[in-house]
């Protein structure tokens, strides 16, 4: 699998993501500067976490206007794989590649701690190494992760089973306490209709090494490596 990580000015988890991808795929991902315009030969495009353009105005709003965006959009339209994590998820919603928006956390504070994610479906390239209903841990670190979409958009997401992960308790139950940022319906991540584009707020890439407190995030990358092998 050939992966690329898009480097927008101000993002800061590109190296974490590169480490996680290399660990599972054996290859260093290509770093693509936001002013580039081509993604030829890339299977997976990753928009990493951070504060693109300082998160000024709205998180991801300015990055969504980057020169690289048309290439990312074309890649997605071609049925290519695109994963946006944290700021990357915000950029994907701002660019209209995923529905909804990410608002300021309900408590109006930055949230940095591990959360539990419930896997809603595992028949995708991203979740193949998890099982449906499985709960795994991932660090979160964001100030604007409060997922919002109109009622009908939410119903469509649910109807088409496009919710990827939800904030849950360790036992998989969906509570308000587990839903720290106030996201609608505990949504932590969603897929595009063709299941090729994934956006999620937490950071599985920061939990792929037992030394850092666990490997709960590793199956996501192993799954991708397997699904996109060759």
């Amino acid at each position, binding site marked *: 699998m050939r992966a690329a990580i898009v480097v927008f*000015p*101000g*993002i*800061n*988890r590109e*190296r*974490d993501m590169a*480490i*996680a991808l290399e660990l599972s795929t054996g290859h260093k991902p290509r770093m693509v500067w936001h002013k580039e315009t081509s993604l030829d030969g890339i299977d997976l495009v990753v928009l990493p*976490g*951070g*504060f693109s*353009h*300082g*998160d*000024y105005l709205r998180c991801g709003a300015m990055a969504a206007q980057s020169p690289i965006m048309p290439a990312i959009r074309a890649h997605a339209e071609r049925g290519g794989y695109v994963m946006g994590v944290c700021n990357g998820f915000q950029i994907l919603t701002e660019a209209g590649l995923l529905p909804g928006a990410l608002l300021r956390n309900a408590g109006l*504070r*930055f*949230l*940095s*701690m591990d959360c539990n994610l419930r896997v809603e479906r595992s028949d995708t390239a991203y979740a193949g190494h998890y099982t449906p209903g499985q709960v795994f841990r991932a*660090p979160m*670190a964001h*100030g604007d992760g409060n997922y919002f979409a109109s009622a009908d958009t939410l119903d469509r997401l649910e109807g088409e089973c496009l919710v990827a992960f939800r904030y849950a308790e360790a036992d998989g139950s969906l509570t308000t306490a587990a839903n720290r940022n106030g996201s609608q319906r505990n949504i932590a991540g969603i897929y595009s209709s063709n299941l090729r584009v994934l956006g999620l707020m937490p*950071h599985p*890439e*920061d939990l*792929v*090494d037992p*030394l*850092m*407190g666990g490997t709960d995030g590793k199956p996501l990358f192993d799954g991708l490596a397997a699904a996109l092998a060759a």
Partner: protein
Amino acid sequence: MKDVNQALAAEFGLSAEEYQRVLDIMGRTPSFTELGVFSVMWSEHCSYKSSRVWLKTLPTKAPWVIHGPGENAGVVDIGEGLAAIFKMESHNHPSFIEPYQGAATGVGGILRDVFTMGARPIANLNALRFGDPKLANTKRIVDGVVRGVGGYGNCVGVPTVGGEINFHPSYNGNPLVNAMTVGIADKDKIFLSAAAGMGNPVVYVGSKTGRDGIHGATMASTEFDADSESKRPTVQVGDPFVEKLLIEACLELMATDAIVAIQDMGAAGLTSSAVEMAGKGGVGIELDLDHVPQRETHMTAYEMMLSESQERMLIVLRPDREDVARAIFEKWDLDFAVVGHITDTGHIVVKHNGVIEADIPLDPLAEQAPLYHRPTTETPKQAELGDVADPVGILPALFKLIGCPDLCSRAWVYDQYDSTVGGQTVKRPGGADAAVVRIEGKKRAVALTTDVTPRYVQADPEMGGKQAVAEAWRNITAVGALPLAITDNMNFGNPTKPEIMGQFAASIRGIAAACVALDFPVVSGNVSLYNETEGKGILPTPAIGGLGVLEDAAQAVGLAAAPGQSLVLIGSIAGHLGQSLWLREIAGREEGPPPPVDLVVERTTGDFVRTQILAGAVAGCHDIADGGLLVAITEMLMGGNTGAVLLAPPADIAEHGWWFGEDQACYVLAVTNPSALLAAASAANIPARLLGLAGGSDLTLAGGATISMIELSAEHARFFAEWMN
């Protein structure tokens, strides 16, 4: 523009003698701009005029020290060809005036001190001291400072992995915000600030210059008074986004051979960076301010020279590399301007609109900078405490202590700091006595901590100084790391008061003694004086930032104890309650001498503990500090979600002394094989004692008194959540 005379000099914070010295150096009346340059360079903040004589007595050398004090940050060899570069710096006054921006720009400033030397910043820490939590103003300042530290650190993508936060009414009008940054570089690729090379271009990069923080350096050097209000317009606003770009652009440029010298524009902005760079290089420098990127119109030379606009650096380039450099900064959308060149005149010459606004000889500016041997009086020793009755009993006291503002969970604070970005954080805040951050792509890790116990320093500045260094050393040891060096941030009151200067001198003595005994030299630091409001000074607060190294991050241990593990005390407890939190919170007294620090015992005990950890014999380790033994045990149990059954104290010690005394050089270890540890200890002549067994959901004392861990954990978590709801 006002004419220059003694009155104006006084307004600029120069004494009559200092102004006379300016006249002697210049041989004429200085220009307005020249007076501004003298006043900031000779301010307490930049010249260390009250503290220098004492700072010189600090031990700063060791085989592993590459650069000690005198550079933008300290540099130590951590093996495998790598260097750790670190420093702590205060932003106290700005944080009182505007908590969010004050704290944010404090983080930004210390980051620049570290990456200007060629290091990629890998960790931030912050040591915070605030006033009485009962005051609404304290709440406002805490909230703003914590948001500011997080707002800046999270955005630049440097994990904030540790620090301290404490409360005492003496900080009501003078909160302390001390920020520390640690970076990693190849040890043969360190960048210094000494300018060289006749005619070499002097380049300005980063953000544009505005009228921000003019005279911030002098503000940081005076006491607060009623008219501090009027100083408010000098508040600087930080732009962490630009800082992030600046880090990446500078590191990219540093990978080339273009740089001759580089220095951040910190306090006193363009003035101090230009003066320090040329001064250290023994050359001259000429600046043409017409080329300085400006955010405002009609800025004067004085304003541009003194502006403290953030996120700016000054670089001396190889002339043939200007284009390489320009291309890099343009790629990152940062300003890049040649604003001058290096000369052989030994002067700093500042031109604006074709007029020479300043022409100052650099040697006298530095060498004749004021240096004061201020009078000192020794702090009287505290009377011995004698016996103190236990008014409430052990578990009620524990319950109260574990929930008090100085001992309760800090999660509310560090949950707002991104501690995992970078993917190398082995021990996060709250998980161990020191933060542990692995070096990307290596097994090696650094262990980091900040420590000081101001109430000890107040009671006995020398002992308190020793204790601060000892505790930093102990915290690094407690994760299994080898302590290497410290940075210090000396926060004190008004140095013109002999008793304050006495505190300063004595604590430096204590720090120095501990550094020598523990092979733990000072490689960088910062001084913040005049932390007084209406004559009331803060508790003397010499914050110590410690750095240690682990060859294999996998060997690091946290502080949690798991069910089934035995708890063993290493070190000996005399039950010292003087200046303890038990005495303050339970008996309502702030009295007595602080716990004595025996540096020989400290070292032998710590070396033993580290050996055991590296041998893999230890599952969890926590030193005894604020709150004493029982608080330490409780923290270990909360960390492992378990209870414990504890054995009785020795008969010859008062029970509350045993459980709550703050004796030094003590550790609690969680182990699976206690007898092996006890045997090893006795073989090494280290006092050790079995304390009990972890397990269950309650904490139970010999004799049956018991309390549920759920209750304790809830009380531990309560304060900040309720306070900030």
